[in-house]
Every structure is written in structure tokens, then in C-alpha cells.
């Protein structure tokens, strides 16, 4: 029975990957654009997506696709938590106190590095620059930016996000 369920789940996953690959409307479709489309829709790159992308892009191999997927730091290979918290560590934010925010957010989530909380509720990611440097220090929760953060306000925002349902996939 278990294998039956797994097989069905795999087929469903493969279908989602294929739909994501076919959803690309732009003129130029490449290995990179395909991986971005998959991660956009599925929030991660499952292993079947590597194979499917190699099939989708003429002339590319599984090795070519892995090479690209493992290079860009935005790609991830496991599903993220329900909510994603990004803390910026760029120099503008660093000067304005990003380290303290990073530390309190880690404590709040019970993490000592990037990754998922054990309950799967949160993903913590460090970001090199969220692009709102004039509002430093900045964090982003589910891709919404919050500036002029203090350790207290950052923790409050994380708690507020945790009380809401998962970000729309």
C-alpha cells in the first residue's frame, strides 16, 4: 500500500513539475529559467525536476541541470517551512544592528543556523541584501519586507506570521 501511495505522490509531483515547466511564456526558455519556474511553483526543486528539466530542454543532460541547480544559492532541494523568514546581513543592515536581530530571531525559532524549525513551521534564511537598505535593518517574512526593525519588532513579526496559515503556494 505504501508503495502505491508513494507512486501516486510521485506522479502528482511529476505532473506539477511538468506544468511548471510548460507554464513558461517567455521567448527564451533555458535550464535556469526552467528551474526558476519549478521553484516558483513548488517552492523547491524535487529530484524529479532535475530529470524533467533535462528532458524539457533540448540538448541538456541531468548533469547540466544539477550543475546549474547547485550553483545558484536560491535553489533548495527540500520543501521549505510554512513561513520563510529572511534576515539581511548586508553592510547597511549590519551597521544598523542586523546581528542582534539575527540572534533574537534564531532564539525565537530555536535554530542556530539557516534551515527549518523542527515543527516545519518556519524556514530561516540569511540574505545578502533584501534591497531596502535605506530602511535598515530589514527582514522579510514570506517575501514581504519590514524595515527599521528592532529585535523586539522582528520577534513580534515572526510570531504574528506563525499565527497565520501557511503562505499561499
Amino acid at each position, binding site marked *: 500500500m505504501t508503495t502505491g501511495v508513494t507512486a501516486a505522490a510521485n506522479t502528482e509531483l511529476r505532473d506539477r513539475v511538468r506544468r511548471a515547466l510548460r507554464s513558461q511564456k517567455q521567448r527564451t526558455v533555458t535550464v535556469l529559467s526552467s528551474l526558476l519556474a519549478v521553484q516558483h511553483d513548488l517552492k523547491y526543486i524535487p529530484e524529479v525536476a532535475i530529470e524533467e528539466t533535462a528532458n524539457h530542454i533540448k540538448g541538456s543532460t541531468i548533469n547540466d541541470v544539477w550543475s546549474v541547480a547547485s*550553483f545558484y544559492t536560491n535553489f533548495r532541494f527540500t520543501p521549505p517551512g510554512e513561513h520563510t523568514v529572511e534576515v539581511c546581513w548586508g*553592510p*547597511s*543592515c549590519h551597521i544598523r544592528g542586523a*546581528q542582534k536581530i539575527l540572534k533574537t530571531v534564531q532564539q525565537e525559532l530555536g535554530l542556530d543556523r539557516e534551515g527549518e524549525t523542527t515543527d516545519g513551521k518556519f524556514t530561516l534564511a540569511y540574505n*545578502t541584501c*533584501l534591497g531596502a*537598505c535605506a530602511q535598515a535593518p530589514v527582514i522579510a517574512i514570506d517575501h514581504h519586507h519590514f*524595515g527599521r526593525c528592532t529585535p523586539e519588532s522582528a520577534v513580534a513579526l515572526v510570531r504574528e506570521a506563525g499565527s497565520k496559515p501557511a503562505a499561499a503556494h
Partner: protein
Amino acid sequence: MTAQYEELRARAETRWKELTAGSLPWVRVGGGVSGEAAGADAATAAINQALARLGKRANVTRVGMLGLCYAEPLVDIMLPGGDRVFYANVTPQRAREIVETHIGNGVPEASLALAQVTAEGSQGVPGVPRLDDIPAMRRQVRIATRNCGHIDPRSLLQYVASGGYAALDKALSGMTPAQVLDEVKNSGLRGRGGAAFPTGVKWGFLAGSKAPVKYVLCNCEEGDPGAFNDKGILESDPHTLLEGLILAGYATGASNGVIFIRQGHEEPIEASRRAVQDAYDAGLLGKNILGSSFSYDVEVALTGDSYVAGEETALMEAIEGKRSMPRYRPPFPAQAGLWQKPSNINNVKTLAYAPQIVAKGGAWFKGIGTQTSAGTAILCITGDVQRPGLYEVPMGLTIREVLNDVAGGPLTGKRMKVLQTGGPLGGVLGESSFDVQIDFDAMSKAGAILGSGGIIVGSEDVSVVDLTRNLVAFNQFESCGKCFPCRLGTTHMLEVLERICMNGARAGDQELMERVGQSMKIGSLCGHGQLGYNPILSAFKFFADEFDASIKEHRGAVGAFADGSMIVPSRTRP
């Protein structure tokens, strides 16, 4: 004027009249990523609620960023045909107040107003300064950012009503490609991506090629932490960039343009995509643009997260869907670039000047700025200053003038000790460099780099050793790994800087970093490795005392290491 443009212009003016002098007030909320981070969503919601409670209607528009980030959320209200009044730091509470007074009672709330743009023939609101007169605006000359914060980035018609696409119309109806190229050459425009190469000369390389498929690439990778001017222009006024990209295509005889943006920056990506689509629909892209014989296609391409993707040949690799690692040169992009076709790469800011240069003439642009650096500098000033923001100032002001007059100087009770300019491969500068003129040549002579235009200010509370470590941590994280002197060198330098920060310096650490930096400079293919030692070198030069205190005298851990809160966010590519 082409018939097509005349028709477009007429539609745009009708729409503009409805917005500014129709029956409804026009409320503009400053958006962009900076506005969002400051709370523009909450301000917008509060405005809409207040309107609903009053039973009033208004056009509420999310515009881009005016650049006065310190004043965000920034909201302005204009009653039909009335003065446009700006309100700063609009909390939900303040949003309700200004809507009730300004729209409900029909009287601007002068006590809360930051500035105003008076309607024609109006005396204005008493006691409220004009927008151009407030300190953050007074010294600005806004060319590439002229529409930012004023128009809806989603509206082609608002861009056209503000004079948009007039330069393209002028070029296509009365100028040869060579004449457009000459205007750009005569303007003295130099590339704003960092290298400061004369744009007209660069375009000339591509114009000289007779290949049927040629590319103009617009680089908005903008991975420099502390810089958001490229993304700011795209999210606030994407058509200015697009018009510049089309003009570049016309001047160089290119067949295709590509706007290249890092994934994840949704506002500039969405704004660009929409602008391109709307331009196609209006006959400003595609076959026979505005009825001329010129045809040109543009698409938006995304890269994954990789700083090196901003290097011109790495950028082409990324568009082709590969790892963004720099290529060997020759062949140069002008001979064999994207898909091995002749290509030309320009920064967003560079292209964004082109419409005004073509509209007003190269001589006009050359008259702004300094002898060798024409035009303006588009600066992102962040860190320990009163008024962080995005400012466009004429070249030739000193750094100090910009920091004090425009950005409001140091935080209360503090002094400005250190500047970080030109991105993480740029410089760490001390006070003696504050009087350098903002000008490509004056700055590079002083060992400073204008680069992408980011200026991060640190007060005396900032440890320069720790700041340098932060920059090198970025450079280590972002090395693409192709050249081992860069891949290993950045890692080694970070290791050394970390131990210096933790009060564990070893004798000879400074010399060790010098040797590693030298190897990186000689042995790396692109600027990432070649310039990777720059921040350390300049920090040594300006802050020898601080390094001596850490390296020679072991006077304790510094920065976030000192209070034990340091979290080292280093990670290497798999």
C-alpha cells in the same frame, strides 16, 4: 511626430487631465520595496478605510519611490486641479487624519505636510515648503529619476503624459541611427555600472557590426548590498529604462534587447514585464515601431542568486541558462556575446539617461556635472545618516556636501567616521576622503570607487575591522569558484579577518592578507577576484590605528564579536 505617437500622446493627455483635474482627488502612496518596508501597505489600507468611512472616493495609486526613504511611508494628496501636498512618515493613524482633513474637509493639513508642488497659478499652501526647496531635494538634478515617485509605474499613459517616448518618436521620425549615436557620444555619458567607459564609444562597437542578430543587454543584477538605484528605477519608472533600451537598439542597429534581473525582486520584475508587454501593445516594440522601418524585440530574463552574474560575460552565461561564471576574453562581447552574437551590456542607470539625452541633446547633458564626468550621480545613501535615501545629484559635489546637505549629516550626537562606497569590492574610506568630488576620475584618484552608487555611512560606533570582515564575508560567499585564487583567497582572507575580530590575530596577518590579495588580483578572471582585496587595502590605509589595535595590540574582540552576538553567515556553494 509620427501619427502613432500623436494618437498615443492625445490619449495620455486626456487620461492625465482626468487624474489631475477630473472629479476625484488623486492620492499617491510611495511604494517600491523601500516603501513596502516602511509600511506603505498599512498606510494604503488606512487611507482606503478612511475614505470609505467618509463616503468619499479617490484615485489611490501606488507610485514608485521618490527617493526620500527617510520620510516613508510617503503619501501625497492632490484635490482636482489643486496643490499636491506631501505627507511624511504616514502611520495608519496619520493616514486617517490627513484623509479626514485634506479630502474630508477639503483643506490640506499644513501642520503635517512635508512639502508641496503647487498647481499652476496657485499661491500654494501657506507655511509648506515647495518640494524642490526642501534640503533633501534642493541640490538634486533629476534626469534618470525624474518620474520616480510621481507616476504609476504600471501606466504607460502616465509615462507618455510626462513626455515619455517623445525621444523615441523624435529619433524614429527625424534622426538616423548615426545621429542618435552622435548625440550619445557628444553627451559625454559614461557607463554607470562601475567601469565608467564612454557609452557612445561602446555603442559604436556594436553599431560597427553588420550581423543580422545583435543584442543590447540591460544589467539589473544589482547584487551590491547597499545599492538599490537600478531596482528603484525599474520599480518606479520602468518605461524610462525601456525607452533607453529601444533607443540603444536603434542607435546600434540591434535586433533584440534583454532586461536582466535577479530573481526574487518581484516589484522590478513585474514592473519590467508589464512595461514590455504594454510597449508591444502600443506599437513601441516589435515590428515597424511607430510605423518606422525599425523592428526590435525585448524580453525580461531572470538570474538565480549570484553576485558574479552581474559581470558582463557571466551575465550572458546566465541568460543562456548556465552557471554564471565569467568567460575568457577575447572574444569580446561586441564580437561574440550572448548566444555568440555581437552584444552590448549597459547598466540600468546608463540606459535611463538616453531618452533625455536624445530629447534635449548631448550638449545639454554635457553641461551638467564636471568636465570628465557629465551628468549626475545616482546615489543610495544608507547607514548612520539622518536622511537615508536615493538621490540624484550633479557630478562635482563633494561627498561631504551630499552627506550633509542632502542626507542630513550624522545621527544626533554622532559623527560620520567611515564610508563604504562602490559596493563590497569598493572602498572603506575615512574622513579625509569626504572632501573628494563625486566624479569618476577624482574618486578613483582618491582610491574611492563610485561604482554602483551605494554610499554606506558608519558612525564612530562602527568597528571598521568588523565592517571589513562583513564585506569580505560577502565576497567569499559570492565567489563563483571558477578561479582558485578568488575561491580560496576570499575564504582565507575571511578566516584571517574573523580571527582578528575575535582578538586572535597572529603576527604577520596584515602581510598575509596583502600577499593573498595580490595573488587574487593577478590570478582571477573577473573583477570579483581582481578587486576582492580592495576593501581591506583601503581600510588599512584609512584606519591603520584600528587594525593595529586589533592585530598588534590585541585590544579585545570587536563589532558583534565583542558582545558575543556574532553569527557568521558564511556558506560555500555546494
